[in-house]
C-alpha cells in the first residue's frame, strides 16, 4: 500500500497519473471510487457506481465537467454526482484538492 495519510487528506497520487479527460480507480473497503481529471486540469472524485444500475463510472467518457456512464449513457455531473437532463439520481461526490501536483482525497471518502 503506497498511499500516505496526511491530516485528514490522503495523498492518492500525482495529477499526471490520470490521463486528461480520463479516470482512475481508488479501491476502498466499501467499494471503488472513480477519480477524474477534466480537460482544464481539475480533479473530481465520485463513487464508482452509476445511480442508474451501478455502472462503473470510471469507465465512462469524460466531457466538460461530466462523465457518461458506459452502460446506458446517463450523464453524471462530476461536481455534484447528480444525473443530468431528464434522468434522476445522484452518486456520492467526495472532496479532493490538488497541492504541488499531488492529489489529496478527503479521508472520509475511504471510510477512514
Amino acid at each position, binding site marked *: 500500500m503506497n498511499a500516505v495519510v496526511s491530516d485528514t487528506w490522503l495523498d492518492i497520487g500525482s495529477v499526471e497519473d490520470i490521463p486528461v479527460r*480520463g479516470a482512475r480507480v481508488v479501491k476502498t473497503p466499501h467499494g471503488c471510487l472513480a477519480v477524474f481529471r477534466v*480537460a482544464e486540469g481539475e480533479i473530481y472524485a465520485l463513487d464508482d457506481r452509476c445511480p442508474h*444500475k451501478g455502472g462503473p463510472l470510471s469507465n465512462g*467518457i469524460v466531457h466538460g465537467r461530466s462523465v457518461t456512464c458506459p452502460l446506458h449513457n446517463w450523464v453524471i455531473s462530476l461536481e455534484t454526482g447528480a444525473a443530468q437532463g431528464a434522468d434522476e439520481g445522484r452518486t456520492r461526490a467526495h472532496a479532493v484538492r490538488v497541492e504541488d501536483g499531488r492529489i489529496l482525497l478527503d479521508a472520509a471518502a475511504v471510510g477512514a
Partner: protein
Amino acid sequence: MTEKLVVIGAGMASGRALEHILETDPAKYDITLFGSEPRGNYNRIMLSPVLSGEKTFAEIVTHDTAWYEANGITTRFGEAVTQIDRDRKVVVSAGGETPYDKLLIATGSAPFIIPVQGKDLPGVIAFRDLEDVETMRAAAKPGAKAVVIGGGLLGLEAAAGLRMLGMEVTVLHLMGHLMERQLDEAAGYLLRKALTDRGIKVMCRASTAAILGEERVEGVMLEDNTGIEADLVVMAVGIRPETRLANDAGLEVGRGIVVDDHMVTSDPDILAVGECVEHNKQLFGLVAPLYDQAKVVANTLHGAGGAFMPKQTSTKLKVTGVDLFSAGDFAEGEGREDIVFRDPARGVYKRLVIENDRLIGAVMYGDTADGSWFFGLIRDGETISEMRDTLIFGPSYQGGAALDPMAAVAALPDEAEICGCNGVCKGKIVQAITEGGLTTLDEVKAVTKASSSCGTCTGLVEQVLAVTLGDDFVLPTVKPVCACTDLTHEDVRRLIKAQDLKSMPAVMQELGWKTTCGCHVCRPALNFYLLADWPDDYKDDYQSRFINERAHANIQKDGTFSVVPRMWGGVTTPAELRAIADAVEKYDVPLLKVTGGQRLDLLGVKKEDLPAMWADLNAAGLVSGHAYTKGLRTVKTCVGSDFCRFGTQDSTGLGIKLEKRLWGSWTPHKVKLAVSGCPRNCAEATCKDLGIVCVDSGYQIGVGGAAGMDLKATELLTTVASEEEAIEISVAFVQLYRENAKYLDRPYKWIAKVGLDWVKARVVDDLAERAALVARFDHSQTIYQKDPWAERAQGGSRHEFTPLADFSFKEAAE
C-alpha cells in the same frame, strides 16, 4: 398535332423554361434537348460549394434521368449543336440532323479568356462547368499554388474554394477594390480583410501581362514585371454570351442574341433565353432575370401573352462565413445622401443611398439580415421619409420593436422579396403554406421554388414558415451530430476533408463547436473520421473511445469484461483450445460460450486480469477478436471444397485470407463477413455486410445485408472469376465505406443513402479507383493493424487496468 421543339443548351435557363412549358401543356411539344456538357441540367450556381467540398455534385442536379424520362424528353447530352439550318428547319450535330418546328437557343455564355501569351497552357482554366471544378479539385494538393485572375463574384468564390482545399491562393484584380461593381470601397476593404485572414493573398490594380510555362503553367507575369508562381491559373474576368450558332445562322446578334419582349429572335420560329440573349441592349448574368425570361418563353411557345421586364437584382457572395449583400445603385452623386453604420469590433458595415426620399442602393457587410427588406424598399421605390432616422437599423426597429429576427420577418410586407434568384415574395410563400397546407422547407421549395437555387435565403424561408405556422412548425430536415454542433455527420465529414482539419481541436474550433471538448456522442465519431481520413497525421484520441475500445474487451452489466480471441475463419487447433481452457481455469472465468460468430467467448473476466490473460493467450498465438470494436468482427465460413461434397471453391481459405487482410482496421460501425462454398449458403453469407457465395464459375459478392435490428438480404455487387479479384473488391468496398459513411451507419444504411450504383461504379467498374482504394486501405493498415492485446500485455495503457490507489485492506492494516 404535336410540334417538334428543339432546345440547344441544358443549362439553368432552359431547365426552368422546360418546367414551365410542361406545366402549361405537356402534350403540345415533342422535345429534344441538346447539351454540350455530358450531363443534364444542374444548378450551376452551386458549383462553388462543390468546389470547396461543402456540397457534392449529386446534390446540385436539378433534373435527373428519371425526370427527362417521365416527361418524354429526348436528351442528347455530350452532343453540341454545330449548325442551325433555318431554311430547312433542322439543327446539325455529331448525331446528324434534327428537324424542328420551334427552336429554343439557351447556350448561356462562354468565359472570357484574356488574350495573353500562355493562355492555352495546360493548367489555365475558367470557372464555368463541372469539368473546371474537377480540374481544380485535382490540382488542389495542399501547398500547391493557384492564381485567380479576377476579383469579382466568381473569382472570389473560386479563390475561397481553392483555399479551403489547402492551396496557396493569390487573387489578381485589375480594379482598385474587390467586386467593384457590387461593393463600395469600405465594404471592399472588409471583404479583402476577411479573405486575407483566411490566407488568401489579394493584389489589386494588378494587370496580367503573360502566363508563363513550358509544358504547363508555371506562373503569371504582371505588367509591372512582378512574377507569381502558379500550378493552376483560374481566369474569372467575365463572360461573353455564346452567340456563335446564332451568328452563323444569320440571326440578329448584338453583344447577345437580340430578342423582343416575348423572347423571340429575328426569326419568328426561333426563341432564345438565358445569358446568351440581349434584350433592350441589356445582357444578363444572374439567374433571377433568366427565370423570368424562362416564364415568358414558355408563354410565347404556348401562344399566351406576357412580356419580359428586367428587374432589379441583388448580389450575395456564396463564401461560407463571408456575409455581404448589395443591391441597387450606390455610386455617390449630387442630391444623394448616405446613411452609414459601422461596428468595427464586429466587422459590420452598412450603407444606404437615398435620393428624393427613396432608397436607391444598399451595401452591407458582416450583418446582412435586413438585406431583403432594403431590397424591397429599393424595388418598390417607397418613400422612406418617416423612418429615415431609424432606417439603417432595419425593419424590426421600426416602431421601436426589439431586434428579433422572427419579429423582423413577421414585419415584412407581403411584397418583400425573400428569394432573389426565383423572385419569390413573402406573400406567395405564406399563401402556398396556408392554402397548400405546407409544413416543411422541402415542400415550400417544391411548390414556390423559393430557396431552390443559391440557397442563401433558406433561413429566411424557414422563418416565414415559422411565423406562418406558429407552434405547428418543427425545424427539421437536418439532424445534427449532437447538441455540440448544428452540423450533420455528412457535413462534418466533408468539411474535415475540405478544410484539411487534422485534429480534434481544429475541428471543434473551425466548425464552431458549442462545447469545450465535445461529448460522448460527437467525440468517438470525430475520432473515427480523423483517423480514417488522415492515417499519417492524426493521433488516435484514447479518451474519445468508448470503454470497450479502450479496454479491448466488452464491458458487462457488472463491470467485468468478456474476452473473444480471433479464430480465423472459424478454424481452431487443439493447442488454441487448450490455451483457452487453461485461461478459463486460471482466471476463474464464470462462462465459456460459443458465440454466434463461430468462436469462443470468455465472459466475466475482471478488468485487472485482462493484460495477464492476454499474455497467456498471445503465447498460444491467439490475438484479439475485436468483438468490441467498430471494426472487422468475424468472417464466418463453411467447410467448402476441401471437405464438403457440394463445395465449389475453398470458402474456408478465402474467409481466412479476408480476415487476415481486414482485421484491425477501424470502420464507421462493425463489419461482418461470411463466405459460403456453394449456394446452400451454410455460412449465412447473404445477410452479412459483405458476403461471398462461391459458385462453379467464381465468386458472387453481395453487400449491405443485415441480420440484427433490421433484416435484409445482401444485394449483388458483382460476380468475379478469381479469388484475388474477390479479395481486392472486398478490400476496396471496406475502404469506400470507411471514407464515406456516417459513424454508426452499418453498410446497408450507408448504401441506402449513396446508392448501390455509386458503390459499384467505384469498386467494380473504375479499376483505377479500385486500386487507389485498396492502396489507401493497405497504407492505413501499416499503421493500425496491430494486436491491441499484445501491446497491453507488454504494459501499454497500464493506467486503465490498475487502480490509482488501494485502501481496501486499510482497516486490516490499522
